[in-house]
Structure formats: structure tokens, C-alpha cells
């Protein structure tokens, strides 16, 4: 099967869905880049190059650059979705949601309920997230818990190229507003990605590997780190299951509970801050519904409750790494009541 980067997988998904459905339009800041200059057109293809090449194929009517004006264009996506388009908008860093959250939280997310079921808002808001790029506090956050908290939104956090493509295609075809979060440190990772269009459904966790001793639930970039930890653990004789929920809303509670019950020991790895995050949410789920099967406390591996720091020494310490994940899994696996 062809090997592609996470970035190329997303680009292919956009190409295929735009070709398949004329209602799909994309817009965002520098989504082509260079508009108005006398040099190269589509110079950037998005700040991270994900939309490169779409302009040449689909034209400026469907690939629109925007002013730096998130409220206007994210709200426009909501309005356009209500009126029959399937917009895919990009905000360069999810941190910028601060200037346009109303459009997502109070508008797009709520139309259907407020209007008594009469609205469909098939929009996708793509944004990069995550620490590791030395981008400091306003360009590095993992804000998926904020969106997960809001009914009406679906929230996607892909961890690998194949899922990135299938989940983005599902997001574009989905009739509800979808927040699609791309970890910026994953763009250059490579994996098998089928050439043809396909969907990866929402609300279905991927069983990354199976082991009897401990269940590690991880999201986004933390999945790879959990796999690294699992290799270390395996050498020590501890076999870990790794679950990647892939979407935080809907959340595949059934699979998490199934493996929580099988192993009785659960570690949740979350790049988001610890308070009211996914780690806390999943831990609560397991505590509430798999309590009888638990043989150890549910352990969370998260950054501290601080902003994302800048200096490499600080940022590296901030992020959960394989060693911390392995240590938590060891504690859970060896815990004796």
C-alpha cells in the first residue's frame, strides 16, 4: 500500500472530496498564500501546506483566501453550511479559536437544537494543535476538551496518516459541524494510506495493539508515544493494549470499557491540560462504569496545569513522553491493592 505523509493524506482527502462534490469549498488565512503578490500563486497552500494544489484544480471560487478575520470567516462557514455548501475552513492554530469561539460554540454547534431539528450545518473547521514546535503558549495548545464539552460539535483528533484521510473524508461528508484537529508535529509522519477515497467512521476507537496487562488510552500525537512506551513495557514482560479513540465526540465508550474490564488497569494519556480534559473524562467513565473490574487506580498522564512553555527544556518536560507513559503503565500493571 502507498506510503504517504499525514499532510499528503489530508491533501488527498481534500482533493478527492472537492472533486466528488461541488458544494465543498475551502477557505482560511493563506489557504493558497501569496494572493495579490506578483510572484508565485498558491505559494503556501495553507500555513502547513495541507491545501497546496487545490487552487489550480478547483479555482478561486472554491478555494478562497480570507483576511485575518477568524470571526467573519468561521461564522461565514456556519452560514454557508446552513445554506447548502460544505465548507472546510482552516484556522491556522487552534489557539486562535479565542477570537471566534462564538461562531463555533453559539452558532454552528447550536443551530440544529435551537431550531428544533430543522438545520444542518455540515462544516468542517480544521486547525492545527499541539506542543513540540517551540511555539509557546498561544500556538501550542491541545484544546479538544473545549470543543468536546460543547454539544452539537463532533471532534476529531487523528493520530496517523490513514486515519487522517478517512476521518477528514468522513468529516466533510458529515452533516454536523466537525472540529478537525491536526497535530502539527504529525504532518511529516508517514504511513500506509490507500489511494482511493474511504471513510473512517466517528465514534470508533482504533485498537492499536492488544495486551493483557494494562490498557493505555491515548489521542493524537500521544498514540505514537504510547506505542513507544508499549515496546519498552513488552521487553519487561508487561503487555499493553493501546486504544486510540480517534474522535473525542462521539467517544467510543464501549471499546474503552471493554478493554478496561479485560485488563482491569487503565492509563489515560492526554496532551491537553489536566483539569476537565479528556484524561479526566475517560477516567470518570471507567470509574463509573467499570469500577468492579478495576485492579488499580486509573492513572492520568498529562502535562501540568500550566501554559505551554517555549524553551526546549521546558516544553520537553511539559509534554508526556514514552518514559512517563511507561512508568504510569508499570505502576498500574504492578499495583496491588
Amino acid at each position: 500500500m502507498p506510503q504517504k505523509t499525514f499532510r499528503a493524506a489530508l491533501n488527498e482527502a481534500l482533493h478527492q472530496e472537492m472533486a466528488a462534490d461541488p458544494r465543498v469549498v475551502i477557505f482560511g488565512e493563506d489557504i493558497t498564500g501569496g494572493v495579490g503578490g506578483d510572484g508565485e500563486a498558491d505559494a503556501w497552500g495553507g500555513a502547513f501546506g495541507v491545501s497546496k494544489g487545490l487552487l489550480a484544480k478547483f479555482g478561486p471560487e472554491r478555494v478562497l483566501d480570507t483576511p485575518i478575520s477568524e470571526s467573519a470567516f468561521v461564522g461565514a462557514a456556519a452560514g454557508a453550511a446552513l445554506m447548502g455548501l460544505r465548507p472546510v475552513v482552516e484556522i491556522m492554530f487552534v489557539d486562535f479559536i479565542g477570537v471566534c469561539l462564538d461562531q463555533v460554540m453559539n452558532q454552528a454547534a447550536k443551530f440544529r437544537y435551537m431550531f428544533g431539528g430543522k438545520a444542518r450545518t455540515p462544516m468542517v473547521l480544521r486547525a492545527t494543535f499541539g506542543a513540540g514546535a517551540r511555539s509557546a503558549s498561544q500556538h501550542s495548545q491541545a484544546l479538544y476538551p473545549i470543543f468536546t464539552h460543547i454539544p452539537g460539535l463532533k471532534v476529531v483528533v487523528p493520530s496517523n496518516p490513514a486515519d487522517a484521510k478517512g476521518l477528514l473524508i468522513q468529516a466533510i461528508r458529515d452533516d454536523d459541524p466537525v472540529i478537525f484537529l491536526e497535530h502539527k508535529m504529525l504532518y511529516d509522519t508517514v504511513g500506509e494510506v490507500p489511494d482511493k477515497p474511504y471513510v473512517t467512521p466517528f465514534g470508533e476507537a482504533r485498537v492499536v495493539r492488544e495486551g493483557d496487562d494494562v490498557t493505555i488510552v491515548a489521542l493524537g500525537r500521544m498514540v505514537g508515544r504510547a506505542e513507544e512506551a508499549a515496546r519498552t513495557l513488552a521487553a519487561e514482560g508487561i503487555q499493553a493494549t493501546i486504544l486510540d479513540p480517534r474522535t473525542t465526540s462521539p467517544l467510543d465508550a464501549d471499546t474503552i470499557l471493554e478493554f478496561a474490564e479485560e485488563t482491569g488497569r487503565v492509563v489515560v494519556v492526554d496532551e491537553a491540560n489536566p483539569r476537565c480534559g479528556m484524561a479526566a473524562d475517560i477516567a470518570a467513565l471507567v470509574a463509573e462504569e467499570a469500577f468492579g473490574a478495576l485492579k488499580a487506580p486509573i492513572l492520568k498522564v498529562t502535562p501540568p496545569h500550566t501554559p505551554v512553555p517555549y524553551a526546549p527544556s521546558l516544553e520537553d518536560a511539559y509534554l508526556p513522553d514514552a518514559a512517563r507513559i511507561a512508568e504510569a503503565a508499570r505502576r498500574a500493571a504492578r499495583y496491588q491493592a
Partner: protein
Amino acid sequence: MTADNRIRIVTMPKWGMTMTEGKVSAWLKEPGDPVEPGEELLEVETEKIANAVEAQESGVLRRILVQPGQTAPCGAPLALIAEADVTEAELDAVAEGAESAVAEGGGLSTARVDAGGLSLRVTSAGGGEGAPLILLHGFGSDAGAWMFVQEALAQGRAVHAIDLPSHGDSDVDAGVATLEALAERVGAAVDALTDGPLHLAGHSLGGRIALRLAARRGKRVRSLTLIAPAGMGGGPVSRDFVDGFLRADKRRPMKEALRLLVADEGAVTSEMVERALAAKRIDGAQEALEAIAAACLGDNAPEGVAEDRAAISAPVLVLWGAEDRVIAPPAEGAEVLEGVGHLPQMEAASRIAARMARHLEGAE
């Protein structure tokens, strides 16, 4: 494998395109143990797969070169099998030579061939003077079904595993669903790969297609190997499997369906489940698979089998798992492998590879 035919080198297998290395998780035999073909020697695991490596030859396990927990690249020597009279010095010499002869990269490559407007993916191994072997996988699967045997069969010949229409990485077309249509497209792909003599092998649905194709390609076909072929079993194709597979849209029901394929249900890994689901989620694949199942795997599956067999002069080998729950083995006419389900080429890879190799040699 070695200049000294008395010493056999067991190498790290390559199971599929992306496998570059494997880890020895356990040795199932100890140095000094006699081994027979088909006996499990060791367990190897990768990030995605765990499976046993079986002995291909008889002899004594004389030396283990890679210890449990250690990782080695595909093709790397793992152990030496020889008779008791081979000296330690002779073993040393072979071990040293083998270390330096580790295969670089994998022996598998992929290409696309045009099959009457449909582009089919072909995964190829080996090469040489021998008539090429064409492998056709079963319903809902892909060329990866042959990953445990393909390289072993590629001794002195090319071995091409074709993704059937609407399967694997091949084009999807629900209009290509009947046995005749499938055989015609696969035949076009085969003709694009070789215009000379060839060997054909197929598993399950692929076995039925191989039989039809052999009937259509006449003298060019040197031998035919059918593994649990559809339409030739002791009973119908299991509805539990076909319908369960078609209906499964989530991990658990898919796992239930796939468990029917193997004798040892623990062999169904999450990776296999993921792959099966992913294949069905390709645009159009579900509809195409439903059409193929309706056209080829129902009560009509045995139709034309007798006529096709009558049209074939090449030697035919039929292999079947004794514990096949998808298509029960027939009362006669098949070599039946004990303790094996519907996926002999995966469940008993070494035995199947060895048996097929003999069949091919005999037909040359």
C-alpha cells in the same frame, strides 16, 4: 540458501510490504531438538503481526542465532538446521557467511496492471526462468493473504499476487461481480503479466476464479493449486461468514466474522480486523462486495465446477483445512490439513509453501 546443502538457514520472514524487521518473541524448539516440516520453530512479532515460523525441512535445530526479545531485519539468519553429523566448525562458517548475506530491503514490489479498464494492483516477489505463479486471494481479502508464503514460493520464478477487482488496492467496480466477469478481468491482468506458461493458485473465491481461468487459458496453465476453493466444498459457503462479514460495520462484529476463518480464534488480531473494516470502507467497496457475494458465493457457487475441471489438463492440487468453518472440506479429492481452518496459507504457511513448491516442481 547455502552452499552447503546439509545446513539450512532459517531466516526472518517478510510478511507484507511494510515489514522491514521482526522480533523473535520465543523459540519453540531448543538446540538439539529434531524438527520436521510444518513444525513450529519460533514465534515472530512485528508492530502489526505475530505468527509462528514453521520448519521447512527436517533435521536438527543446531544453532539459534537470534535470541528471544531480539530484533532482526527481514532475511536475516535466525537459526541453523542440520543433521547431527555436521560439525560446529561447519556451522560457524555458514553462520558467518549468512550474516553478511542478509537481504537488503524486501523482496516484494507492487505494480498496477490494466485489466480491461480496471486497474488491478499486483504484489510481486522473485523472478527467474521458472513459469510465474499467479496467486488469487479470497473474498474480502487482498494479496496480503499470501504474505507468509509468497517469498518462499519465489524460488527461481516470479510470484504475482493480484488484488481481485474491488479488493485491496484494485479499482472498485460493482459491475464486475460475476465469476465470468471476475475471471475475465483477472485473466486480462495475468496476460499483462505474462504471455507464456504459468502456474495458478487461488484461495476460496480466488480458487474458484483460478479454476475458471485455468479452464479458459488451457495449455498455458502448467499447474493449478486450489486452497479451500468456493464451489468445491463439502457444503455451501457459510452464510454466517459471508453475511457476517458484509454486515460488520464495527470492530466486534468483524472480529466475530473473521474468527470463523481460522481454527485458532486467538489468531485474529486487531490489525486483521482493522484491515478488513478499512477495505469495506473504500468508496463503493461494500456494494461491490455484496454484488460479488450474491453472484459467486451463494447456492450457485458449485455451478460450472465440473465443466471447468473437465477442461483442465494440468495437474490440480486441492488443499483444505480440516477445521474449515467457512467451506467444509469435501469428502474426497482434497489433501486435508489437520488443525487448520479456512486460511491454510496463513495458519500453516510453511506446510502450504512446501506442498505447493513440490506441486509446482512436479508440473514443470
